[in-house]
């Protein structure tokens, strides 16, 4: 799913750019800061992304995948509890 090299495709490459939204910059910076703190590294980030269910991987935007992975890894490490973020968002 994630391992795209050499897949057969003739899909055109969309070269339009978008300015990174604040939450995208924030997500990038969160992952970067977690890296500098030694909490999670880029290999873990990628593993978290690659562990996404395929349909969700396809549907999610770039930084949505980062966010998903950060949650996965932080939960695995016990730094956040399962459902803790959802509880906060619901509250």
């Amino acid at each position, binding site marked *: 799913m994630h391992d795209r090299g050499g897949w057969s495709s003739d899909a055109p490459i969309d070269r339009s*750019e978008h300015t990174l939204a604040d939450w995208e910059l924030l997500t990038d910076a969160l992952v970067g800061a977690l890296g500098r703190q030694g909490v999670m590294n880029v290999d873990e980030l990628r593993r978290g992304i690659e562990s996404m269910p395929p349909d969700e991987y396809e549907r999610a935007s*770039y930084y949505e995948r980062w966010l998903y992975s950060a949650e996965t890894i932080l939960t695995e490490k016990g730094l956040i509890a399962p459902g803790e973020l959802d509880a906060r968002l619901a509250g």
Partner: protein
Amino acid sequence: MSHDHDHAPITNGDEPAAAARAHALEELLVEKGVLRREDVREGIDWLVSRTPADGARLVARAWVDPEFKQRLLEDARAAALELGLDPGPSPVLVAVENTAHVHHMVVCTLCSCYPRALLGPPPDWYKSFPYRTRAVSDPRGVLTEFGVELDDDVELHVLDSTADRDPAPAGWQRGADRGRAGRARHPRLDDRRRSARAQASALIFSRARVFAGCR
């Protein structure tokens, strides 16, 4: 790999949901003392300050200084530091030169490795599924789409910036023109570097343009 946290599916185009989630995660991590808000702000400031300007400086210096160019090709990280530029966190940064006979293309097939410190965040197309796929399966077609027409006798090297593509983390895959035929470690990576859990970074270097690269 089990996925043991439970949340509503994150859907594309639903930015407010992801935005709220990112802010909530920051809040939670700050409250728990995992991160300080200043560290996160610093990261944002760093990211928005990164543009292709530093990479362009590196290349421009190499145009006018052949000895510097040699050092850049031997160790791009050291060359960047020599000019007082931030080469980024990746332990390995590689510069390659486009010539009349050889053209290089860089792709991160697994995700988005790119020399962000020197070139800024990767463009959206670099991270897109079609580029990650077709840069390997149809590199000349991709170049044509980008307005680059190579003569048939120009060799095209496709470099995968993904770190763990090879058994050795910092290894390079060198694909031949028609896909995955060739596979060789980048000749400039020595044993000491290969032992690092490194990201292979690339900065494409040519008279015409600065192209692609790594994290």
